[in-house]
């Protein structure tokens, strides 16, 4: 087992057992895309229901379930995994590493996310999905009938454990695995935002875990943490949720900031303006992310001083974000801008996100928030920042890194259609929702009455949603029809960072020799002042690689089985699941596994083929 080269494995077995960060990244990508599609369909169902007043397309209960699952799936199972996909694939390449610090944990994190997500979505087939909103406020969640909320709790616990593992993994990778010369202040911005995001994950997810645990105690094991009659306090759940929930929205936006920094500087052919200011702004946003959670709870009745403090802290976040916006604009200033699809998304992001930011500052005024709270104004705001920020970031990264990930370029012309349809559809859907909210349409309600001035704008909003859905279909078509574009994939954008110095598709060991980093934008520096190739930091030698393992799936299966036991309060199933879980962990602990070596001869042969 140790020090032996692995024999050829079947494709399926290879993907199930892989610990390669690139393959895990690709699996995260398709997992995320799968849930993105499901959550998008749920959004379409809601928009059809709201297209006309008093529609009876969805039953009220079904509407509540669709609404809850749309939010939960989009945030936990679509946006975060899609960012994890790029983080996994790109960050080790950008810092010149062969893999992440803990490849096994990486694989475990992915399978936990996938099984947690499937567990959550299984609730559709077992008598009703969760119906208490993605926040699952007590006492609505503690008194919700059926097992929907139990699926919510266990599904998020399982996938949350995976997220926490991945976060720790990225932290250790970025601290320990940088190539020689890659100091912290030479790291590409995407690596920096991944680093800060991982810190947020590390500090924020425990609050969610605790909140869900208390909820589980109340629902399944007869606890009374949120039972006011027994001396419990429902507001504590809201605090716990938002102590996690607010950093969570920065977990969703910071990687997008990193992506835009890479894309804008690449396509403006300029070094990023104000690199160190960008890094510090990222850290300040991360820090302030923990100081503002109660702005989601202005109308709970915390009192004027608490409201005022959280309002001011919230407005302070506009400062580092503004620094970032101006730095992107000044990076573009005087640059030789290429309007590729990746860059179009980045350019459209700037005004769209600023609009979301402006309504954010409006919402931060606690007195005015009493008017905005629970209306479509809030819905418009967070869709502007999440779609205009995170989703644009994901699409930008998709077009930008697709050649590196899959070895072919996505069609630019079809991509432009996709971009414009999506952009127009997005603004059509959500811009009018600001006004719907201001004239008093409440959010999370399954229908509205005729003759209240809400009809036209709701119809426009639904049409925009159809445009976005159609645009997304174009993206899927693009993935299939572009497969022939296999030329010029190694460095198609004249890239600046280390990932473009590798072959496309990337070799299993990433770099035959660990590169020596001499400047920020390491690859660009070699193109300008060197011979256009990275200098090696080590002689060509055998490469030590980790062995694949099926254990992550077994560990995850055990945990999922145990979760079923908890949902249906069946001790025998809980014990069975935990036995599988800990048994697989035990095997992992006692089995010696030193990985294997790729001999120099094979590396030389593959390098020869690469040229």
């Amino acid at each position: 087992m140790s020090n032996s080269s692995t024999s050829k494995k079947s494709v399926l077995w290879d993907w199930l057992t892989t610990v390669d960060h690139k393959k895990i990244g690709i699996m995260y990508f398709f997992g995320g895309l799968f849930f993105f599609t499901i959550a998008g369909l749920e959004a379409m169902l809601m928009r059809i229901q709201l297209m006309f007043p008093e529609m009876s397309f969805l039953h009220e209960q079904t509407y509540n379930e669709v609404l809850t699952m749309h939010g939960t799936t989009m945030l936990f199972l679509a946006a975060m995994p899609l960012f994890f996909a790029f983080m996994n694939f790109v960050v080790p390449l950008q810092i010149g590493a062969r893999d992440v610090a803990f490849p096994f944990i990486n694989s475990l994190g992915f399978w936990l996310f996938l099984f947690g997500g499937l567990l959550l979505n299984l609730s559709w087939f077992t008598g009703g999905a969760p119906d208490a909103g993605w926040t699952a406020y007590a006492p609505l969640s503690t008194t919700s009938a059926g097992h929907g909320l139990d699926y919510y709790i266990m599904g998020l616990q399982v996938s949350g454990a995976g997220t926490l593992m991945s976060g720790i993994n990225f932290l250790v990778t970025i601290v320990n695995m940088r190539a020689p010369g890659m100091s912290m202040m030479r790291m590409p911005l995407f690596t920096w935002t991944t680093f800060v995001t991982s810190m947020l994950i590390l500090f924020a997810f425990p609050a969610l875990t605790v909140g869900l645990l208390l909820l589980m105690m109340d629902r399944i094991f007869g606890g009374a943490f949120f039972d006011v009659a027994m001396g419990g306090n429902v507001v504590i759940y809201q605090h716990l949720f938002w102590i996690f929930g607010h950093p969570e929205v920065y977990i969703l936006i910071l990687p997008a900031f990193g992506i835009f920094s890479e894309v804008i500087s690449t396509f403006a052919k300029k070094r990023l303006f104000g690199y160190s200011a960008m890094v510090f702004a990222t850290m300040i946003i991360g820090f302030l992310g923990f100081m503002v959670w109660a702005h989601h709870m202005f109308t709970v009745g915390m009192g004027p001083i608490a409201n005022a403090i959280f309002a001011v802290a919230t407005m302070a976040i506009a400062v580092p974000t503004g620094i970032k916006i101006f730095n992107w604009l000044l990076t573009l200033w005087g640059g030789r801008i290429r309007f590729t699809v990746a860059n179009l998304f980045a350019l459209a992001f700037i005004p769209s996100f600023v609009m979301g930011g402006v309504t954010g500052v409006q919402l931060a005024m606690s007195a005015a928030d009493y008017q905005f709270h629970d209306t479509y104004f809030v819905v418009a705001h967070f869709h502007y920042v999440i779609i205009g920020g995170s989703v644009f970031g994901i699409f930008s990264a998709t077009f930008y890194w697709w050649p590196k990930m899959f070895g072919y370029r996505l069609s630019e012309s079809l991509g432009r259609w996709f971009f414009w349809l999506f952009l127009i559809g997005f603004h059509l859907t959500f811009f009018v929702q600001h006004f719907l909210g201001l004239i008093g349409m409440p959010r999370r309600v399954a229908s509205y009455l005729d003759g209240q001035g809400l009809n036209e704008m709701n119809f426009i909003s639904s049409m925009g949603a159809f445009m976005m859905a159609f645009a997304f279909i174009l993206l899927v078509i693009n993935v299939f029809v572009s497969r022939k574009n296999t030329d010029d994939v190694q460095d198609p954008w004249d890239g600046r960072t280390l990932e473009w110095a590798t072959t496309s598709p990337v070799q299993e060991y990433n770099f035959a020799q660990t590169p020596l980093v001499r400047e920020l934008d390491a690859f660009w520096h070699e193109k300008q002042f060197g011979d256009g190739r990275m200098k090696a930091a080590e002689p060509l030698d055998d490469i030590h690689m980790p062995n694949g393992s099926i254990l992550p799936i077994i560990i995850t299966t055990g945990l999922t089985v145990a979760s079923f036991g908890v949902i249906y309060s069946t001790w025998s199933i809980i014990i069975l699941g935990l036995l599988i879980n800990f048994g697989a962990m035990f095997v992992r602990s006692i089995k010696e596994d030193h990985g294997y070596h790729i001999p120099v001869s094979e590396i030389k042969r593959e390098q020869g083929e690469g040229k």
Partner: protein
Amino acid sequence: MSHVDPSAPLEGKPSKATERKLKNEARTQIVSFVFMIFITSTAFLTVASDVIPTHFAIPFILMLAGVQVVMQLYYFMHMNAKGNGWINVMLWSGMFVAALTVAALTVIIGETKF
């Protein structure tokens, strides 16, 4: 160079400098161990004796516990060693965030509205 087994036992004798370092480390460990035993017994005596009033004993024990945790981390878990900068950063920033959150929560959850 390439095929190093990381779990293989070390060979050869340690250098003079290493020996001195190990000796120093052993001394620090023993001193801090004795000190921690002292702290623990102080905490025990604070509770066991009837002389010390409860309203003093509880914060006093909590303070001793804080000192103990920090000593444990720095002397026994070697957080004072070189190359642990990031561990320090993460640990203290985590503590800071947690402390601030708990402090804010104790103020804003309750009967009195601020």
